[in-house]
């Protein structure tokens, strides 16, 4: 399919069209002094001056809390009533190319040994309209992990900002189908309509992903005192994992009153002390640097080798949100040598 065009004003038509077909339109909006992904009903709500929303759009396919089943305790035992997964057609507008690459990574986790339908059913219904970045901040490092504002991995449709609108490039079948389904909202690209220049963040000096991977693979390095020295300031808040587009750990818990309740799947984070605490009281990751090491290993060794997928997309959220300013790229640099 050839490129299309949609003006900023024209977005309202697209939103209406998506809604009319029973879908929802998610885009970056301003909420309590932060840009976040939220369902919108008009184009005016959408902000265009942002680096990245605070939250990751992984929430759409992997919500923070998910009810898996309802249960009831009776004299005859426990009756369990599974909850049907309601997946809605969802359009994510304005995702950044870095983040777009993340769902693929999540998909490999949720499908390798067991197909987690709570995730896949939702993911199937998500159409990602990524928007090439015309700005970057100090924390962006997609180029360091071999992505860029021009990356298309994980995007269904690529959008490129112009003076008054966006040039629309469908990338996948899903993307083509989406543009076709809402063809009224798009026009052909007018002559002279120019893409704004994409801005690449600077590559972090000294990072070599191959060397990094090799080094992490060597077990003696696991107990290198460097880990503690580099990460002992980590306060274990887990804000990084909860903002990260590729973090995917969860916990299943039953919550309710005496005779009934719900089984819920909740986000969990390897940064929490409780995450690995055994019933015996022993905790294999008993100090914070071990927990941080785990997250780092997960991103740059375990998942890349296990699934050949990108563990870190360089969105920089973890650096922005970190209250102690622990910079993952510092570790990447240190561990590349």
């Amino acid at each position, binding site marked *: 399919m050839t490129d299309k065009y949609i003006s900023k004003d024209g977005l309202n038509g697209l939103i209406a069209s998506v809604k009319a077909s029973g879908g929802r339109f998610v885009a970056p909006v301003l909420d309590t002094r932060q840009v976040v992904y939220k369902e919108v009903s008009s184009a005016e709500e959408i902000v265009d001056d942002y680096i990245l929303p605070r939250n990751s759009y992984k929430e759409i396919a992997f919500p923070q809390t998910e009810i898996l089943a309802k249960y009831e*305790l*009776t*004299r005859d*035992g426990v009756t369990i009533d599974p909850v049907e997964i309601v997946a809605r057609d969802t359009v994510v507008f304005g995702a950044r190319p870095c983040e777009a690459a993340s769902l693929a990574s999540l998909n490999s986790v949720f499908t390798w040994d067991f197909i987690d339908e709570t995730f896949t059913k939702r993911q199937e219904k998500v159409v990602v309209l990524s928007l090439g970045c015309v700005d970057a901040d100090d924390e962006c490092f997609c180029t360091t992990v071999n992505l860029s504002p021009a990356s298309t991995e994980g995007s269904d449709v690529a959008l490129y900002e112009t003076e008054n609108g966006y040039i629309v490039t469908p990338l996948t079948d899903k993307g083509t189908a989406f543009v076709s389904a809402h063809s009224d909202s798009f026009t052909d690209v007018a002559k002279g309509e120019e893409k704004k220049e994409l801005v690449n963040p600077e590559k972090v000096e000294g990072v070599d992903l191959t060397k990094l991977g090799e080094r992490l693979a060597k077990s003696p390095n696991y107990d290198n005192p460097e880990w503690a020295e580099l990460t002992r300031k980590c306060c274990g808040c887990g804000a990084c994992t909860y903002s990260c587009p590729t973090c995917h750990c969860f916990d299943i818990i039953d919550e*309710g*009153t*005496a*005779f009934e309740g719900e089984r819920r799947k909740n986000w969990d984070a390897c940064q929490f002390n409780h995450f690995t605490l055994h019933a015996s*009281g022993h905790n294999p990751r008993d100090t914070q640097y071990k927990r941080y090491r785990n997250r780092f290993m997960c991103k740059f060794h375990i998942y890349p080798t296990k699934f050949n997928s990108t563990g870190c997309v360089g969105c920089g959220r973890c650096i922005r949100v970190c209250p102690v300013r622990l910079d993952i790229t510092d570790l990447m640099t240190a561990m590349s040598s």
Partner: protein
Amino acid sequence: MPRIGVFVCQCGNNIEATVDTQKVADETKKLPGVVHTESYKFMCSSPGQDSFKKAIKDNKLDGVVVSACSPHMHEKTFRRAAEAAGLNQFQCEITNVREQCSWVHHDETRKIGTDKTMDLTRMTIQRLKKNRDLTKITIPVTKRALVIGGGIAGIQAALDIADGGQEVVIVEKEPSIGGNMARLSETFPTMDCSQCILTPKMVEAELHDKISLYTYSEVEKVDGYIGNFSVTIKKKAKFVDESTCTGCGECWEKCPFKADSEFELGLSKRKVIYTPFPQAVPNIPVIDKTRCPKILKDKCGLCAKVCGPQSIDFTQEDQLVTEEFGAIVVATGYELMPNKDFGEYGYGKITDVISGMQFERLASASGPTGGAIRRPSDNTEPKNVVFIQCAGSRDEKRGVSYCSKICCMYTAKHTMLYRHKVHDGQAYVFYMDIRSGGKRYEEFVRGAIEHDGAMYLRGRVSRVYEKDGKVIIQGADTLSGSQVEIEADMVVLATALVSRPGADTVAQTLGIGYDKYKFYNEYHPKLKPVETVTAGIFLAGTCVGPMDIPESVSQGSATASKVLALFSSDKMAREPITAEVNKQTCNACWDCVTSCPYVAIEKEEIKDRKGNVVNMLAHVNDGLCQGCGVCVCACRSKAIDLNGYTDEQVYAAIATF
């Protein structure tokens, strides 16, 4: 799945009238874990309990709920029955249906009562599912009592305990036991001589083979709990070897140095090596190390030279001993309000204004004047004596708000003693009210007025001053409505009884409560008057508040009966409703230690295999914990829980709501 039985009592018609107990039984049987339910006319009756026990056995129940009357009524009954049927008694829970449902909701359709009973029973069932087996706590008992204070209350307590066959140690901070009673001349209302009735008891205490006297000693530290106190006692250096001293008196005869006698309240002198009074028990002197020139600057040493058995030892030092006790009786007594508080009565400024206790010494046959009433300034016989009552008592602004209770009686006694010794003397008494409640007390006061001619003036004294060797008293006589001025030779103040200085420190050492006047708090002022909140520590005599000799003696005996009851077996059992610390999650912030009303939480050292202290964690002492649960709420990490009322149990009840 648990196997729970629910027993709904009809209580005759008391419950059945407003609650359909059969319906409750039928409905609760539908709940998970409930395998047996029944409704019965009288669960607490013999047949009721038999069927209860049978049901437990037949159905192999592991928990039972009895929906009946208040647990305050029959919880013990059913728990005992459950235990008899082989259940742990703490797997039996009561739902309060009668007092808190059927009796208070008079709905004839029985809908309200039945619904509520079902709700309450459901809550109890869910709570019960979280119950754990608990076993009564048994504590070994050291059968040895400590009596702090060797006044009449302490002596009585010690004698009664010792007569009951148990060992007692009396710790007395003065060189002799006897306390304030030893100072008194005669006692109201019988007028028998104080020394005559006290001395035999003192001697009996000294000679009793179950009693040890630690005189000139003080309690420094108290650790442990009921049955198991560990007490550190400071034995102050007497500089006299108690084991060899015969009490012959040669040393104090020869000692050339004198000091004001504490026992005589400054009315006479004593030597620097001394016994406080001639009948002292033990009759062993001590050296006043603050005044002895041998000790201060290595001069004199005459006493050592004259001592036949060579008992004087100037090198003695204070000694700390730690001993084990099972119970403690606190009988630390009182003192009179210090004179600096009575400027307006001239006390401390005018020599002939004295306290009631000083008058006792003047009237005592063994006192400084040999029993003759002489005024301190010129040693002449006073012809007019004014007694001022409520000096400090019932006077919230300058003194204490309470009534010192014994002053009305002893003032009446003073006027009589005075008249008996100075036949032409006139006693005047300024009083607010006369409080003479007690057997033969009122008659006694009347005798003082009618027989011995004391002049009672109702009113307060406004001014006391000295003029030409006389003490002038100006005051009001409210009954005649006139101002009075009396030229007296001597004034006697019925000063308020107050707690001893340092009473608060002693209380803190012991972990018992005290009021704003530093009198010790009883566990319950009416029903537990000699107990304290700290189990195993008892109170006798005036450390609790003003009281007279018969009361003090009764309290001494009462504490003895408490102690003997405690010592009646080698171990004591306690309800296991106590707090418990989860050592995995304790933060060692000590908030529990601070908030515990019983000093029941200790800082426990956690050691590694080599014995090095690696951590400090909270530890609940089962012997001291009373199970209030204050610590549980103070603990943010919920590292403490209260057995019998655990978080899980409470949560289960709330979640059933």
